[in-house]
């Protein structure tokens, strides 16, 4: 095999293995700027388009806060979210909270509720408490060293 094609294969392998534990986060300059100040700029595909639309229409009453933004930013961010939203109903929640979606609940079913009330976590909205590199798009399960800190918060049943 020529060195060039060998390097190509390695690159391909690396990107494939990376894909398995990353959640591609499409980029948009305004989204992290306007929405990422108070919480992780959640990957758009974690909610359905109709959910995002409802969130963007109610920014003045955003989970108890007034998070209004100017009309132009709202339009651009809404378009971005809708373009990358999920069409899978497992990503829909009437509460508009990602942690109430069937997908999230299934993914985190082994976590005890008190994991979220821990002072260093505070809320299931605080992704980076466990997924330290979430903002860089790396969402794999926390490394063991980190898991140990949170061991008390896991149940033992695997189903």
């Amino acid at each position: 095999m020529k060195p060039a094609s060998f390097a190509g294969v390695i690159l391909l392998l690396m990107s494939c293995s990376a894909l398995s534990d990353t959640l591609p986060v499409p980029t948009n300059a305004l989204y992290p700027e306007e929405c990422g100040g108070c919480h992780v700029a959640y990957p758009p595909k974690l909610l359905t388009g109709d959910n995002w639309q409802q969130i963007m229409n109610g920014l003045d009453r955003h989970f108890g806060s007034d998070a209004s933004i100017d009309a132009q930013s709202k339009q651009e961010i809404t378009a971005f979210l809708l373009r990358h939203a999920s069409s899978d109903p497992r990503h829909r929640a009437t509460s508009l909270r990602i942690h109430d979606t069937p997908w999230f609940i299934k993914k985190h079913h082994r976590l005890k509720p008190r994991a979220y009330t821990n002072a260093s976590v505070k809320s299931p909205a605080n992704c980076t408490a466990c997924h330290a590199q979430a903002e860089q798009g790396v969402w794999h399960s926390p490394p063991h060293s980190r898991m140990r800190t949170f061991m008390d918060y896991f149940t033992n049943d695997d189903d």
Partner: protein
Amino acid sequence: MAYTTATKICLIALILSAMPAAFADTPSSLAAGYAADAAKASPDFTPSAQRGQTLFTKSWGVSQKMPGCTACHGNDPKVGGKHVVTGKRIDPLAPSTNPERFTSLKKVEKWFKRNCTEVIGRECSAAEKADVIQFISQGS
């Protein structure tokens, strides 16, 4: 000395890349701007770090979750804090530990508007903004 086209392009790019820095806002230019605005109403106004600290650390009692600035920004602007609802880390406000702060009027205006309305129940005055910036950037 004759410059090649490539060198000229590089030089222009270099000059252009340096320009935003030259025109960016700074904590002192922002405080001065707000102070000038405040002076229109009270001519002998000068920003006060002490008044700024009082505003910053006061418990306003308007929002239950966010009674004061420190609920999210922490007690020490050089250290930063944690969003009281979401738990997200909030980087320090003090320019001495976080040079990105107070370098864009647009950004500063946006956050004063959003946060003063949330915490104090109204927008902050130019005088209050000047005081708070004075407090946050003192010693830097």
